[in-house]
């Protein structure tokens, strides 16, 4: 127990609230971009910490705890929140002060958690969030009375408006004895006790004159459309199709800007430096390699933007509701939809998002199929091969390239369904688990939250390009450049290098599915991060080209040297492409054993080889050789 004689210079504050209370938006408002995202020790629940300085100069370290409906957990997220509050979490000190974020437009659902926290004995302030929206929509309540009824300070906050957090900051500044009372011993309340607390909630709402207006007609109509038995699924399908078309078409301009920028830098460096090892390393290794990966940043950001918007508006849980039965037919929960959709961006956050699936076997099955969702790291490979081999012409209202891309995505989904079906009937058979999903009110997405979300993704992607990917590129450049070709040797120098030897050795394995040694070689660094395969091809082809390689772009080069059958086979390979290492590491951490990552690698490799073999042979038979 801590006792402070005077106001301390720093304070550890935790934000707690039910899901959809606007807790994370308030966190963003408080801390801006001064955030550190990591994991809680030993689990992959995301730990978001930020900081800010109060007007008095006091430092606040703010932790955004995972959303929880109750201190009696049904998910890993909720267990983390409870254990943190009780000071039971390894490596984490209990908070000195707790902000309970409640949605002012939904006190009936939110207030029970505030009572539970108050009764726990931790020092709290209640943040009446979205109070502007509540007023606009006609909600009324007596804040002073609520404060008296709860016996703790209650402040109004507006997470989405600048300055909307000032009252909360003032309340925190007024705290002189943070963490004065340690949490009481916690026992899961009895059935009767929960009912008692709920009656208390209703009594308080009555006492403070909480009036809830009828739901707006427009929102009712929107729900009637979105959740309509026929129009709902049709809308969802159209939406997903639109997203994938947009990823391709909107990104065209920024991508060509980036790629001409990279070529320009390459040409400048080429002119500036004298020929030799350093020039080759910079131009062929660093610029050609990293440049061919950075060019996909626009597509990745567009995809993430859509996912973030769908999440913020409240549409995603409705999609999970619509798809519950379909997912149920292969043994997954509708809740698996959100992790699987995130996996289209990247399997790593997708696998981390499975923590909201309460049943451990459902969760494992979802983790095992998540890598079959076409992640954005595969887009560079798809985009390269499609641009080189599939004509850009309209088919009805669509575009042939877009359609091919869509087919690749669908193939991944169908394969995921099939694998889940098999797993849930064998190794991961489980007993029944409920759905019980809140469908939150529709909201306009918050620009600040979107910007912070996209900024985080861009940082991660560029960070990867800057570190892992760049390092791999340099290693690859080295392997491709040494030993040098003997003087007067015919053919490009790379054939005589270590890389040439590795590629040729691998070619024996991959020749039956139509891969030449350049592709075989590019697959190796592609295991570390899939998008590296493109950079690797860039490096390999740039080095084997006669003359100045960078000036020629990769797509026409492979279009001239691969057969269509090889290209299709590579696409099929990448639908199932064995894991990138970061995914395997996350699976290892998430499942706490090597069993699942190893099983995953084996089954994906087998599927990829079989699919590519079949594609190659069929294409050859149809004359695409």
């Amino acid at each position: 127990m801590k006792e402070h004689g005077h106001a301390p210079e720093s304070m550890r504050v935790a934000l707690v609230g039910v899901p959809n209370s606007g807790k994370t938006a308030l966190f963003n408002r408080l801390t801006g971009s001064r955030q550190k995202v990591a994991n809680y020790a030993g689990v992959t629940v995301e730990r978001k910490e930020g900081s800010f300085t109060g007007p008095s100069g006091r430092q606040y370290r703010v932790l955004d705890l995972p959303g929880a409906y109750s201190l009696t957990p049904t998910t890993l997220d909720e267990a983390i929140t409870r254990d943190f509050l009780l000071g039971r979490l390894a490596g984490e000190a209990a908070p000195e002060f707790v902000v309970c974020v409640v949605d002012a437009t939904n006190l009936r659902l939110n207030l029970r958690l505030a009572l539970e926290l108050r009764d726990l004995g931790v020092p709290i302030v209640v943040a009446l969030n979205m109070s502007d929206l509540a007023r606009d929509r006609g909600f009324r309540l007596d804040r002073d009375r609520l404060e008296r009824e709860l016996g703790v300070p209650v402040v109004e906050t507006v997470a989405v408006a600048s300055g909307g957090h000032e009252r909360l900051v003032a309340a925190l500044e007024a705290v002189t004895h943070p963490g004065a009372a340690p949490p009481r011993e916690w026992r899961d309340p009895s059935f009767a006790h929960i009912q008692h607390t709920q009656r208390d909630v209703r009594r308080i709402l009555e006492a403070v004159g909480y009036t809830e207006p009828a739901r707006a007609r427009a929102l009712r109509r929107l729900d009637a459309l979105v959740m309509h038995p026929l129009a709902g699924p049709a809308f969802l399908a159209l939406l997903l199709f639109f997203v994938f078309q947009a990823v391709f078409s909107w990104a065209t301009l920024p991508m060509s800007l980036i790629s001409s920028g990279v070529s320009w830098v390459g040409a400048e460096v080429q002119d500036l430096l004298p020929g030799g090892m350093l020039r080759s390393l910079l131009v062929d290794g660093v610029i050609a390699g990293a440049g061919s990966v950075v060019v996909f940043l626009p597509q990745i950001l567009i995809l993430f933007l859509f996912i973030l918007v769908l999440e913020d508006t409240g549409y995603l849980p409705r999609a999970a509701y619509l798809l519950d039965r379909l997912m149920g037919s292969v043994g997954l929960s509708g809740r698996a939809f959100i992790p699987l959709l995130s996996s289209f961006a990247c399997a790593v956050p997708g696998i981390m998002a499975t923590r909201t699936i309460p049943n451990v076997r459902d969760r494992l099955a979802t983790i095992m199929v998540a890598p079959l969702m076409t992640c954005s790291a595969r887009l560079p490979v798809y985009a390269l091969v499609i641009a080189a081999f599939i004509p850009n012409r309209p088919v009805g209202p669509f575009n042939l390239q877009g359609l091919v891309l869509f087919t690749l995505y669908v193939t991944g989904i169908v394969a995921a369904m099939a694998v889940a079906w098999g797993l849930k009937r064998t190794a991961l058979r489980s007993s029944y688990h409920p759905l019980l999903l809140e469908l939150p009110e529709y909201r306009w997405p918050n620009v600040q939250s979107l910007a912070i979300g996209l900024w985080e993704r861009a940082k991660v992607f560029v960070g990867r390009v800057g570190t892992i990917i760049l390092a791999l590129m340099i290693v690859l450049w080295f392997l491709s450049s040494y030993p040098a070709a003997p003087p007067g040797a015919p053919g490009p120098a790379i054939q005589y290098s270590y890389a040439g030897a590795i590629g040729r050795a691998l070619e024996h394995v991959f020749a039956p599915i139509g891969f030449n040694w350049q592709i075989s070689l590019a697959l190796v660094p592609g295991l570390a991060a899939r998008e590296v395969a493109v950079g690797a091809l860039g490096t390999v082809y740039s080095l084997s080209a006669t003359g100045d390689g960078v000036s020629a772009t990769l797509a026409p080069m492979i279009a001239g040297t691969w057969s269509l059958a090889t290209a299709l086979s590579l696409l099929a390979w990448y639908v199932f492409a064995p894991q990138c290492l970061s995914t395997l590491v996350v699976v290892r951490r998430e499942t706490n054993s090597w069993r699942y990552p190893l099983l995953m690698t084996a089954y994906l490799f087998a599927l990829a080889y079989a699919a590519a073999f079949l594609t190659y042979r069929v294409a050859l038979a149809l004359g695409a050789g």
Partner: protein
Amino acid sequence: MLPISLATLRKGTRGIVAEVTDDAQSLGDESHSTISRRLLELGFVPGEPLEIVAAVWPGGDPIAVRLGNTTFALRRREARAILVTVD
């Protein structure tokens, strides 16, 4: 009228929650009625009005239930625990 299970009701039905049963057996809930507990925590408490606002086609399962100012998606199987007095 006697309360009947929410699981048996059709889209568009309105009623008042009469009781949430603690019958772990009938729910197939191994983990000691966590379903009923969570239903109570979410606000399915006696006296609250609710309405079935949507159901997925085909089969009418899961259903979307409007309760207070929130909508919840649940399967008919867990809806069995909620007894409703129909208006």
